[in-house]
């Protein structure tokens, strides 16, 4: 069972490195999603409010995906392949505490990125009434689900470069393949069937609803289910002991 004090310790260890590596952290969480939001807006010209809300929701999901899959995946891989995981393995620490500590670090970073995105969207005149609770539920469930994916990749990768390529591909690919920045009608029927059930699609629906203060329960329930499945598999693979 994970312990709160151990989770906070893992979080603090990773937070401490933020001081020296703030640039890449901010780049991952803020610059890419903001750029994608501005790009999507620019491509559609003077878009309607609901379309701009979709772009904003899409950018929030993109930010979460980059943070939880690409960046946290990178940290997990780095810890594993530089021998830092071995250091954690010497401690009376549950592997789940280690993962949740890193996840907490990712959530803190995601909150920063999403705050910047919402502030920017307000400055650009997007009409919205975000609900704190629906948005928090969306962010946490999406992060849990994505984090599970990055744990699986980090635990199974045979090398740092293989794992890094996988997390980068998943981080950006899952957003761009899903109907997040465009309408589902724009993709072929066979792909649509799959892409609508991607966690990024569900998260984008849930985020769009949260931006006007609503809960999208079916999406949140599906995300919760995916989070349980991905984390369960991730914890099974993430062991401090070799066989």
């Amino acid at each position: 069972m994970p312990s709160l004090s151990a989770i906070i310790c893992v979080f603090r260890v990773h937070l401490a490195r933020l001081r020296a590596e703030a640039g890449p952290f901010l780049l991952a969480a803020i610059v890419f999603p903001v750029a994608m939001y501005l790009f999507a807006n620019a491509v559609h010209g003077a878009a309607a409010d609901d379309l701009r809300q979709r772009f904003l929701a899409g950018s929030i999901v993109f930010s979460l995906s980059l943070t939880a899959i690409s960046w946290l995946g990178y940290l997990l891989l780095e810890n594993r392949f530089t021998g830092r995981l071995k250091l954690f393995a010497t401690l009376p620490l549950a592997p789940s505490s280690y993962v949740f500590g890193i996840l907490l670090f990712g959530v803190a970073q995601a909150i920063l990125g999403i705050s910047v995105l919402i502030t920017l969207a307000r400055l650009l005149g997007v009409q919205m009434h975000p609900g704190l609770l629906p948005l928090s539920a969306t962010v946490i469930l999406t992060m849990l689900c994505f984090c599970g994916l990055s744990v699986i990749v980090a635990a199974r990768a045979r090398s740092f470069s293989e794992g890094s390529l996988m997390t980068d591909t998943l981080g950006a690919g899952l957003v761009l393949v899903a109907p997040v920045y465009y309408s589902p009608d724009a993709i072929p029927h066979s792909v649509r069937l799959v892409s609508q059930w991607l966690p990024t699609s569900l998260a984008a629906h849930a985020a769009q609803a949260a931006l006007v203060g609503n809960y999208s329960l079916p999406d949140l329930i599906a995300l919760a289910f995916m989070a349980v499945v991905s984390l369960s598999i991730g914890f099974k693979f993430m062991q401090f002991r070799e066989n």
Partner: protein
Amino acid sequence: MITAERTIDSRPKDTASRTKAVALFVRGLVKRYRDGTEANRGIDLDVQFGELLSILGPNGAGKTTFLRQITTELLPTRGSISIFGIDPINSPREAKRKMGIMPQEAGLFETLRAREHLELFARFKGLNRAQARRSAGDVIHELELDAESSKRVGDLSGGQRRRILIGLALLGDPPLLVLDEPTTGLDPNSRRAVWSVIRKRVARGCTVVLSTHYIEEAERLSDRIAIIDEGRMIATGTLEALLARLKQSYRLTYRNSADELIVRYFGKFAEAQRYACEWQIPEYSLVRASLEDVYFELTGHRFTENESAKENECRV
């Protein structure tokens, strides 16, 4: 005591009480990797409370595999382990609460400052903020890292980083220290500083199990020495007991006319001197046999890092 999943436990019933009477109790430990390599082949070992035991063996002998099983990092294929009566196979976290572990290789967080690194990791061991600060301060002082405490770990030398790794194991005064080649890569001064720290811990009642491929380290530091070769524990005992196994306790070393290194053993000092005179050896070394000679006697091969010397060496 509970045994490993794949254990066939044939120990007598009274061993359950014995496991609690010693700090570390190992029976029939076998580790077979997936490729069929048998790194440990049925190791038995008892380590008493407050004892310092060195595991000596050349690279690839199975020292690290053995220690990794004790520290719960590697699941044994067969056998049982008990640490203060706790089974580390089934209760790894409980066992790790009793241990300070230094792996042979591990990565540090390079952007953290040395003191900060130690303080943060002390918190993992259940110390509160004040205790963590005190423990980190003590360790920094003991390991002579005061001048480096506010430097980033990434800016420290290899030896200083190794001392930080040792320091991480010492945090929180664990009753058992398991150190895998703690002084490898350290300069002589740092090595002596580490020896001194380990001795102080033992004097305070700590049990220490360390692996080394430095014979001098095993000789100078240990209460008992366990010699491991090709996955088997081939001898265990005090230095005196191991040396007593040698029937001929004086070693004469010289080079012959073909420049081969010749090693010859004698029961008495005078015999060796007489031999050197009779054969008119111009230059030789005559010393009391050491642990290295015990190793040679037991395994038939030399425990040396100097491969070229090894190649030319002949035993007479």
